[in-house]
């Protein structure tokens, strides 16, 4: 059964769910969430992962001159280096 699920997830390119489903099912065995809660949790993880991968792809193809962390806005980095305005 697990193998079939893994294969179907792979075919559907749901890589994040494939990665976490074993742990999630094990946790669900003890916490007993509703089916809809479990499904929403898995789909949310997959959606966030896909957004992250798309963002990384856009960054890669944009050829920005420096490798910035996603959280760092170079605007702030650039203005930090400017001297304070005259009083």
């Amino acid at each position, binding site marked *: 059964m697990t193998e079939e699920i893994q294969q179907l997830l792979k075919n559907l390119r749901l890589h994040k769910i494939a990665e976490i489903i074993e742990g999630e099912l094990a946790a669900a065995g003890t916490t007993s969430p509703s089916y809809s809660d479990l499904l929403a949790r898995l789909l949310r993880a997959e959606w966030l992962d896909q957004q992250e991968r798309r963002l990384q792809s*856009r960054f890669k193809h*944009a*050829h920005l001159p420096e490798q*910035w962390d996603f959280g760092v806005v*170079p*605007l702030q980095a650039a*203005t930090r280096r*400017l001297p304070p305005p005259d009083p």
Partner: protein
Amino acid sequence: MNSPSWSLFPRPSIWSSSVQPEFGKTGLASGLLLKALQNGYRGLFIRAQDLFDEMYASLADRASRKLIRRWARLDCLLIDEVGYLNLRPEQTNIFFKLMEERCRRKATLITTNLEYDQWARLLGNKDLTEALLSRLRHQCQTIRINGPSLREPQG
């Protein structure tokens, strides 16, 4: 800038520092490109020299049309350091076509040290330069940056 109605789209924007380099134009314009990427837009940072080199290379295998289509589709194109380059008329023509394709459709950021009246020296064709600038400047924001160089010796 957190929504598709971000004010720069689809307007071109030219970041200019009048004479001296190193005022941070590239960093600031890259910051806008970065935000566009974070908000789901597709974009490209390309140095002007590389852009014109690719344009010239595309002539050899007659791929100019394909190249223009590829760059014209990008939501945000940042052309860095447009300055005094030795351009051939074919490169100027392709650049004009690219800007025409992008005009009023997609956002273009250009950083340069050139004033508008100096563009004719870069492009080498006065009439074409006037036609290009009239398109570029139609809805363009020109941001002039002055201040101390970011690469002055420290300490």
